[in-house]
């Protein structure tokens, strides 16, 4: 696999949160930016998201969470990726996430958190700078 292949990104909605406006916008923006996008659809458990991420060989998982459950769901997804032997899949995300929760999420291994008002172009630029194609074995 060459390093200049297209990035494969999973866009996920975890938990019971049905607010999928942001997830769908970002999935479309990623697709229009030339990335390969897998959108999980709604109401996924962390286990389901991680299983999809591994099965689809994605380079990064981006989660959209507007339910207030981010402090549980992000660390849980990272923990499961590690358990399943895929700690190199980057995890980032966005949603209604208070600023003061961001340092804790980053300490848990979340690469970046995008809060409301971020432009899709900024997120895409960040992805290009920080997510690299994984070396697949």
């Amino acid at each position, binding site marked *: 696999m060459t390093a200049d292949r297209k990035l494969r990104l999973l866009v996920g909605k975890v*938990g*019971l*949160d*049905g*607010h*999928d*406006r942001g997830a*769908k*916008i970002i*999935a*479309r*923006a990623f*697709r229009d930016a030339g990335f390969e*996008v897998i*959108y999980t*659809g*709604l*109401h996924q*458990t962390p286990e389901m998201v991680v299983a999809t991420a591994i099965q689809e060989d994605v380079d990064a998982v981006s989660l959209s969470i507007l*339910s*207030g*459950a981010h*402090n*549980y*769901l992000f660390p849980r997804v990272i923990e499961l990726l590690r358990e399943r032997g895929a700690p190199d899949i980057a995890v980032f995300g966005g949603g*209604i996430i*208070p*600023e003061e929760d961001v340092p804790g999420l980053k300490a848990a291994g979340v690469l970046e958190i995008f*809060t*409301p*008002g971020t*432009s*899709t*172009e900024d997120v895409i630029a960040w992805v290009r700078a920080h997510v690299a194609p994984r070396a697949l074995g």
Partner: protein
Amino acid sequence: MSANGKPPAGRKPTRQAWERETLAESLRKSPERDVAFTTVSDLPIERLYTSDDLAGGWSEGEKLGYPGEFPYTRGIHPTMYRGRLWTMRQFAGFGSAADTNARFRYLLEHGQTGLSTAFDLPTLMGRDSDDALARGEVGKEGVAVDTLEDMEILFSGIPLDRVSTSMTINAPAAVVFCMYLAVAERQGVPFAKLSGTLQNDILKEYIAQKEWIYPPRPSMRIITDLMAFCAREVPLWNTISISGYHIREAGSTAVQELAFTLADGIAYVEAGRAAGLDVDAFAPRLSYFFNSHNDFFEEIAKLRAARRIWAHVMRDRFGAKSPRSWMMRFHTQTAGCSLTAQQPLNNVARVTIQAMAAVLGGTQSLHTDSFDEALALPTEQAVTVALRTQQVIAEESGVTNTVDPLGGSYFVEALTDKIERDALAYIARIDEMGGMIAAIERGFPQKEIADASYHYQRQVDRGEKSIVGVNKHAVENGRRLDILKIDDEVERAQLLRLAAVRTRRDGAKLARDLARLRRAAESGENLIPPMLDCVRDYGSVQEISQALVPVFGTYREVSVL
């Protein structure tokens, strides 16, 4: 044209002459700003509206009528806010039932006149707090309700015959409504004295909010059972609040919000009639719920058009005889999706404009969002400012002094007509597909909304639509604010309380109730009486909802990007 701006002596002021002389000269000297003059939903807006824009058969009698008369464009009451102000109804719910009960009492003490309950996500999805999918979400976005015990605490000390209560719940709406009835029984309040609103609008869940249990068709059966039960037993209750709010929040345009919501309303009326109900027996208890977004005149026009379309639909399409069936009553909430996390105090200004539009659009009740809601659930201070905003509009601004102050404005009437035409065109397309359920099954409204929301986001990203504090006038560190945090202790305490209820109740009796409910689902008997028995015996939201799954099945969305 003379230099002092007066038409030359002897010239009759006409639009053509104005354009040729006054306007052309002005544009030569200083052109208009280089922006697109469009609404937030991208409807083009002209430089000037005159009586010419209302020509072509526009008749005041037909289009406007008088307040309290068909087609209700100017309002459903002859005196509107001179008679009675709108109900100030702030949506509240967080943490445990006791926390929310305290917020309710606080709001009632501060002059609020109706209650509005927000449930947490597990409750909205018909899941108990101890379900695996509920982890981390208990009490976060609303109050956690598992069994009747939680509802008893939620309404403790609040006499249900003296408040009107709105409950924002859909997929398990019937279960939660039965819990409310059971609380009333325990307070000794007859069902006939209960007033309030159940959101109970499952169609917009498939379209926008995405909290469902069963597929659309069996869900409609539960709704018609509830309509039939309430027509008999709880006559003052609004059985469905047909909601455009969430459709708009999901990113629709104003026209889509209006069209899809009315198409949902049409589907409920058709379902009620197919279930053998007389349209005038249930239609007066249908109410609507709209969003009020940033574009002031677009929102006012949308609300006025909504009343006019519904009056015609009910009278002409469904042959309703009672004016109560023709009148569209609605609640309005300011647009949560318009609030910014950046410079959050700016949201007070947005909410004021949006609330003013709702009032000038003739709303019956109003929720004003709190300025901190792009960051978290609102603090008490933020909720108070939001309520005070309504009070300032009601008691200081003067807009309540006359009925429909904007009626007859060339611009507002032209925009009302335009939005009406565009919404009717959408409704015609949905009719051609076989109605809203069929349209949902093929993903039509979902796709239209996703397209509109992406289009808007692109416009914001390119700076074609302004958001003050975000893509215009932004500053660093603009989001410092004390916010409400929901303690994770809430989840732990709720799990203990639920476990205690499960131990204490009569499990064998509940099992018989649940079996009877399932048989009713199979036989077609009205589901509400057996459901009420399940609730009285402390069956949980999830147990009761799941009892119907073997008969009704579950829904899975085919995701459209």
